[in-house]
């Protein structure tokens, strides 16, 4: 019998939700690390019981926790994130140079093949890696050392590296995204990087089609088509079919194309999901109605999914790392809200249930499909 495990990071701790393959009854365990911010938890594809968690606090800084038993017990591992060499400067909000300063780990991406290898995306934006199960972390300096680094500027949430996608067909290729620098690709295992932002248009920056400076909120990939990426930009939903060489807008009939999350159906690489948010100045759904939008055509034509979701007086947000997909048949879709709900659909989005409510604000949701 299949099992599903949902790892939920919140502003005040982590929660681990489990259910069998029916996904109709959920056990909730936690809080783990109560009172700390859990920006992200993710399990190793090579060993699902190995889970890494980013635990941070404005008071006491960054911790990394590791579990070897599927989230039942945890141990702190290395928390030393020091930039390679002289940190240099990026651009501050007022356009002046500002020294790179480590603040927190936003995203942990375990290797597809090695449980001891993990990539970490951090604020101020940089990419780190461990190959010893999290005991030690080293910066991959080629990204921050890209010539455009001094021109990267923080978004409202900080200068954060929030998305890391590993190409399952090519171990040398990976993609990352930074708010507000844009998307980057490496074809040599992370040694060197190139910006892949052609086709993006951001009206709020001095040069709307600049090579860097775009506030990319999230990238998503289907493992069977790793050269096709989907993007929720600050405004605009985009896609590329050539690994980022050229992006095309696919917002189509969305009621608003501002938002944070985007993800792809486990078995249908042209079926994608977003949660439209009214605007960058309001950060809640339109009309007080929480709606997931699904496109079965890779964008442009979208349908609202509302069954089981609150359709009045709902003013929550859904943050960029707070949507995930299981690989059961039918595919499950999960997302968490700033109101502390985690909603799940066990039928590809047709209907939804809150599988837990009244948690602290949800920052991240990751699902593991266990056989």
């Amino acid at each position, binding site marked *: 019998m299949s099992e599903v495990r949902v790892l939920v990071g919140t502003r005040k701790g982590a929660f681990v939700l489990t259910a069998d393959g029916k996904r109709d009854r959920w056990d909730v365990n936690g809080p783990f690390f109560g*009172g*700390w911010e859990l920006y992200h938890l993710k399990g190793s594809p090579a060993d699902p019981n190995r889970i890494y968690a980013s635990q941070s*606090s*404005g*008071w*006491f*800084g*960054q*911790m990394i926790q590791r579990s070897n038993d599927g989230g039942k017990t945890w141990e*702190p591992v290395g*928390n*030393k*994130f*020091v930039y390679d060499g002289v940190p240099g400067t990026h651009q501050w909000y007022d356009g002046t140079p500002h020294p790179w300063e480590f603040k927190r780990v936003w995203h942990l991406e375990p290797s597809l093949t090695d449980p001891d290898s993990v990539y970490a995306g951090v604020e101020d934006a940089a990419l780190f890696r461990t190959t010893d199960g999290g005991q030690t972390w080293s910066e991959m300096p080629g990204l921050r050392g890209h010539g455009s680094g001094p021109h990267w500027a923080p978004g409202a949430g900080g200068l954060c590296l929030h998305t890391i996608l590993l190409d399952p067909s090519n171990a040398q290729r990976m993609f990352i995204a930074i708010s507000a620098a844009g998307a980057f690709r490496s074809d040599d295992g992370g040694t060197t990087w190139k910006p892949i932002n052609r086709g993006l248009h951001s009206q709020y920056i001095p040069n709307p089609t600049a090579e860097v400076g775009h506030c990319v909120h999230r990238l998503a990939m289907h493992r069977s088509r790793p050269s096709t990426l989907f993007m929720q930009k600050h405004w605009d939903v985009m896609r590329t079919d050539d690994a980022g060489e050229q992006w095309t807008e696919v917002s189509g009939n969305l009621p608003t194309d501002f938002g944070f999350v985007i993800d792809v159906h486990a078995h249908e690489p042209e079926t994608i999901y977003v949660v439209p948010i009214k605007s960058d100045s309001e950060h809640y759904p339109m009309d007080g109605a929480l709606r997931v939008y699904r496109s079965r055509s890779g964008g442009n034509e979208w349908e609202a999914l509302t069954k089981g979701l609150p359709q009045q007086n709902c003013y929550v947000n859904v943050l960029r790392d707070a949507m995930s997909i299981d690989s059961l048949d039918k595919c499950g879709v999960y997302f968490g809200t700033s109101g502390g709900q985690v909603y799940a659909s066990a039928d590809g989005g047709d209907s939804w249930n809150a599988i837990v409510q009244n948690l602290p604000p949800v920052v991240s949701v990751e699902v593991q499909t266990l056989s």
Partner: protein
Amino acid sequence: MLSNEHSIRVVLPAHLRTLARVGNDEVQVQLAGPPTLGAVLDAIEASYPVLRGTIRDYDTEKRRPFVRFFACEQDLSHEAPNTPLPEAVIKGKEPFLVVGATAGG
């Protein structure tokens, strides 16, 4: 105990006690050299390596902004690392307090 060794009582904030797995109790750290502010912080990190980076920045060893140090009703947060600890702390009559500042939500 040799005359230049000191056992210092330390009160840690709740989150750091949890990380260090010391329950609700005070902890004691041993100083072999001059009993200074920097020496007690070094000793805390040496006794509880999991706390490295939570009180002071790894790189600069500067106090994290929302962490404060108190002893004998004195705020030692802004003192230099070579500042001697108060006599009552050195003699074990008073603890050295690491405090998470009252800030945020």
